[in-house]
Each structure stands twice: as structure tokens, then as C-alpha cells.
């Protein structure tokens, strides 16, 4: 099927003329909006060369943006590894045969999924030091809260994946004498991870975006160094935010692209369990709908 064309007829002369009118009208409206933004920026002197010049100097990048990016990626990488581990452990816990493992795991997962990340981060950064009588490093406040939240979401994803593996897989594994732990670790989890790969990667995109919350507890990540501190020196907060946005979009679009590529690869090999598809659908290839945090 040629992409989305099932929703409308192949355009004839009149439809083509109408589409052209829509194109022109929408294009003019969009350009007018952009021009208005340009004009307003111009009035406020936001296009002044002095505000943009810092981005052509090497020191801006080496002093602010790149260290910020490095801290963002550090926190994201550590939190990714920890939340994947957290997710596996708690999904296995929730699938356990023992109630004393299943219920606490369920409570932990449901609780941390329902609590806003910022609330968690504030508690760990501002609250925990009152109890431990030691200052909390903001790096660990970011990493721990990201791990608890995204780990819980991933635990649910893994659990859904394990339950989607055909029952014959675990029956066959028990039949050849595997133990519960072996069935889980060698048969179910690997297949679940492959089936849930798109969900897992889009959750990791959410994780990368959420490192930006570290800015609020003054962790020196991209938003803190590259926007806040940079703008404090050059007075170009809008410009710095635009550059930071481009960097975030590039990182996350790359991650999403990799996820899509991996997803297509998994589908092609045909070994991963998947939901039965009932015939053709209106839209081909519209998937990927992870709700962002």
C-alpha cells in the first residue's frame, strides 16, 4: 500500500487545485507568523551579532556547552544502566511466585511510577540530607531519582514483554528440565527485551530529556552550564536555549532513529514474539507512541 493514501482518493484536477490553495494559504500564514517572530526579535535586538558571536568562539563551547553536554550524558548513561537493572530486578520480582516478593515489588513500582520526578528529586536533594546529616551530591540526586522513576516504568515494560512471550516457550524450557531462574533469565527476559525494544528505547529518550531537571537542583548539565551560566556572561538566554534545544533534539532523534532501525531488524528476523496483526490498517508504519514523562 502506498503509505497513507488509503484515506483519500488519488487527487484529480480539482483536488489538486484545492490542495494547492491549502498549501499557499497555510504557507503564507506560517511565513507571516515566522516574520512576526523575526520582527519582534529584531525590535528587541535579539539578532544582534554580539549575542550570537559567542557561539563562533571555541571557548564558549569548551567552557560551557561541551562540559554541560558531558555532564548530561554522564548522568544519563549511569541512570540508563541503573534503571535497566532496576527494571529487570523489579519486573522479575513482580512476576515471582512468592507473594512476599511480588507484592512489595508491585508497591514499589506503582508508587515510583505515580510520583513526579521533580518531587522525587527535591526529596532526595533537599530532604535526605536532613536525615543523613550529610550534603547530597546533585549528580547522585539526579541519577537516583531518574533510576527510581524510569526503572519503574521499564519494569512494567519488561513485565508486559515477559507476559507476551508465548506460553510454549516457558513450557518447553521446563520440559527440558530448566529451573525457574533459568527459564526467566535465559528464555523469557531475552525475548521480552527484544519485543519491548521500541518501548525501552523511547523510555531512554525520556530519561535523557529528564536529565534537564537536574538544572533545577543546580547540577551542572547542559541547561545549567550551556544556557544559564552562558547567558549570565553574554546576556543571550534565548540564543543559548536555541542551541541547547538543537543539541537535545539531535541526541534524542538519533536515539529514536536507532530504536526504529533496531525495531525493523527485530521484526525482520521474525524470532521476536509479537502481537498478531489483523490485516492491513489505514496507516502503514505509524507506531512508536511512548508517552513521555
Amino acid at each position, binding site marked *: 500500500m502506498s503509505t497513507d493514501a488509503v484515506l*483519500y482518493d488519488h487527487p484529480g484536477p480539482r483536488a489538486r487545485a484545492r490542495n494547492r490553495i491549502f498549501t499557499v494559504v497555510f504557507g503564507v500564514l506560517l511565513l507571516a507568523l515566522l516574520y512576526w517572530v523575526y520582527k519582534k526579535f529584531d525590535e*528587541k535586538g535579539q539578532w544582534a551579532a554580539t549575542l550570537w558571536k559567542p557561539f563562533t568562539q571555541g571557548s564558549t563551547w569548551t567552557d560551557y556547552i561541551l562540559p554541560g553536554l558531558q555532564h548530561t550524558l554522564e548522568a544519563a548513561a549511569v541512570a540508563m544502566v541503573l534503571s535497566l537493572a532496576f527494571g529487570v530486578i523489579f519486573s522479575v520480582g513482580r512476576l515471582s511466585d512468592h507473594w512476599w516478593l511480588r507484592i512489595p515489588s508491585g508497591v514499589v513500582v506503582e508508587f515510583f511510577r*505515580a510520583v513526579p520526578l521533580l518531587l522525587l528529586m*527535591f526529596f532526595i536533594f533537599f*530532604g535526605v540530607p536532613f536525615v543523613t546529616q550529610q550534603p547530597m551530591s546533585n549528580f547522585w540526586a539526579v541519577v537516583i531519582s531518574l533510576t527510581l522513576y524510569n526503572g519503574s516504568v521499564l519494569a512494567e515494560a519488561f513485565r508486559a514483554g515477559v507476559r507476551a512471550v508465548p506460553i510454549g516457550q516457558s513450557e518447553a524450557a521446563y520440559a527440558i528440565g530448566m529451573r525457574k531462574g533459568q527459564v526467566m533469565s535465559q528464555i523469557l527476559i531475552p525475548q521480552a527485551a527484544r519485543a519491548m525494544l521500541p518501548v525501552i528505547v523511547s523510555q531512554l529518550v525520556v530519561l535523557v*530529556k529528564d536529565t*534537564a*531537571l537536574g538544572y533545577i537542583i543546580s547540577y551542572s548539565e547542559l541547561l545549567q552550564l550551556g544556557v544559564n551560566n552562558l547567558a549570565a556572561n553574554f546576556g543571550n538566554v*534565548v540564543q543559548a536555549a536555541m542551541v541547547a534545544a538543537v543539541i537535545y533534539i539531535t541526541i534524542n532523534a538519533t536515539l529514536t532513529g536507532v530504536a526504529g532501525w533496531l525495531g525493523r531488524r527485530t521484526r525482520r528476523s521474525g524470532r521476536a514474539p509479537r502481537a498478531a496483526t489483523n490485516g492491513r490498517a489505514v496507516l502503514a508504519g505509524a507506531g512508536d*507512541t511512548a508517552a513521555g514523562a
Partner: protein
Amino acid sequence: MEVFSDPANRDVYVTGFLWILKLTLASSVCALVLGTLLAAMRVSPVPVLRAFGTAWVNIFRNTPLTLIIFFCYFGLYSTLGFTASNDLELNNYWLGVIGLSVYTAAFVCEAIRSGINTVPAGQAEAARAIGMTFRQTLTMIVLPQAGRAVIAPLGSIFIALSKNATIVGTIGLAESSNAMKDLINSNGNAVFTIFFVFAGTFAVVLIPTGYGFGWLANRLAVKR
């Protein structure tokens, strides 16, 4: 619990959650309308509209919400001179609603698009065969069926939205996370109580809401 026996502290708590409630309600309506429009654009026959929808989704879905709220404040308000209200707090609230809406709309758009994907092609083909236009096909045949398929994903998007509403605190709205921070800083001896009351409020409201959406999705599912 003696922290919350002080009426001043109780007031901080109530005000914080009222802001979250207002932000969630206003933003979810805006995001739903905007997201549906974007989804319609993304499947429309006009290439410019499709490109616009795609660009919107890719830009807003991949930018941290903190940065979008930042833009609303420094770009929309400081530079472009957008003011929704003369009251500073109310103005920040509306800036927050705008930021949350444009961000969430990208997710709503993608959810609805994948909902459209669950509608069998025969439905749209039959609609076209009896002479329906694109708009009729979409609004009378495809979207009503798609809407029932996306209740569960939309539910999790709106739950995420209500949690994301705490991020509006960045531009100085005294919402629940800022309220909790203030209470913790002035009551260092009752840190756990404060956290569990605030987090518990979210959990008590959002966990049943999640199950509610799941139940609704099952009830309204199109049987095929």
C-alpha cells in the same frame, strides 16, 4: 503529622495541588485539541500540512519540557512580549499551560496516529467508495474508531501531563514540588512525613486513574 496541623502549612499544600489540578485540566484540553489537529495534518493530502505536523512532533517530543517552559518564559514572554494576565503568578500559569500543551500535543498526535493505524483499511476504502471526502472519512469513520483504540495511551499521556505540571515550578509557580521543597526546608525534622504526604497524594490520585483508563479502554474497545 504535626506539620500539617499548622493551617499555614496546610494552605501551602492545598495551593500547590490546586495549581497542579488547574494546569492539568487546562493543558489536557488544549493538548487534546491541538494533538488531534496535528494528527489530522499528518495524514492529510496536503504535503505542507504533513511536513508541519511531522516537524512539530519531532521538535517538541525531543526537547526537554524544562527547556520548553524556559522558552515560554524567556522567548514568548520576555522577548515576544506575550502576556496573558497582568498578575505575575497567573501569567506564569498561562505560560506553563502553553508549554505543557505544545509538548503534550506532540505525544497526543502520535497516539492518535497509531490509533488510526488500528482501523482496518477496508473502513476507509468503503467510506471513499460511497463518495466521502477526506474530511468526512476522517471525522465520521476513522477518528471515532481510532479514538476508542487510543483511550489507554491517552490516559497514560494525561497522567504523565499531570506529573509534568510540577515542572512549571521552574518559572516560579508555587505548585506542589515547590511547596514540598519549602515545607522540607522549614521542617527538617519531618522530611519523610512531608514527602509521603505529597508523593502519596499523587499516588492515591494517579494509580486509580491509570486503572480507570484501562477499564474504560477495555469497555469501549472496538470488537474485531
